[in-house]
């Protein structure tokens, strides 16, 4: 079985400041890792994913995440946030070949002026 832990339920940050949203997973087998973003009253949108290869993955809007196998982590970072980044962020795991996602409890990112 696998589980996903997002330690921070809420992260307030000022605009243009850096941010890190933490995600740890537990699994005895290889995994695929995802970050999804959910804006109010909308569905889940894929932000970025790690399947294989380079452990650092990037999104088109400046977010990046690094797969750290030894620490079983996949933290999401952005060097300078914008008001429009205010949303809920979910980390998710798929056990390799399992074809289904297990989600963390989410982190509410609130960007303030």
């Amino acid at each position: 079985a696998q589980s996903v832990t997002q330690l921070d339920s809420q992260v307030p940050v000022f605009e243009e400041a850096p941010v890190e949203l933490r995600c740890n997973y537990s699994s005895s087998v290889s995994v695929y890792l995802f970050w999804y973003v959910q804006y109010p009253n909308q569905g889940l949108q894929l932000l970025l994913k790690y399947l294989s290869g380079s452990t650092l993955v990037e999104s088109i809007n400046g977010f990046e995440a690094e797969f750290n196998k030894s620490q079983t982590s996949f933290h999401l970072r952005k060097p300078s946030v914008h008001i429009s980044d205010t949303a809920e962020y979910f980390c998710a795991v798929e056990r390799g070949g399992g074809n289904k996602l297990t989600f963390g409890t989410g982190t509410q990112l609130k960007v303030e002026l």
Partner: protein
Amino acid sequence: EAGVAQSPRYKIIEKRQSVAFWCNPISGHATLYWYQQILGQGPKLLIQFQNNGVVDDSQLPKDRFSAERLKGVDSTLKIQPAKLEDSAVYLCASSPGGGALSGYTFGSGTRLTVV
């Protein structure tokens, strides 16, 4: 390409009533998922279909929840009778069949309020 369509967008019912949600996945996607997202929690998988067969329904409360995917395309999720704790957003997702390697697409969800 068209996305995953869900209806209704919102639903308010009284406890003990029944309700049904509908999902139309992306054309050609063999795998369909229903997730329940309770406020303040992450989505939880209720049921996974591969074509019209059930792959995983281990977390579906079968005494009140049922789902079907006739003809391997559209799917309906039903709750009967509803309880207060069923208030949540019900998300439908689909995948070509390869899971992470082929990608998941989520619908906008149906927000259910049970009063």
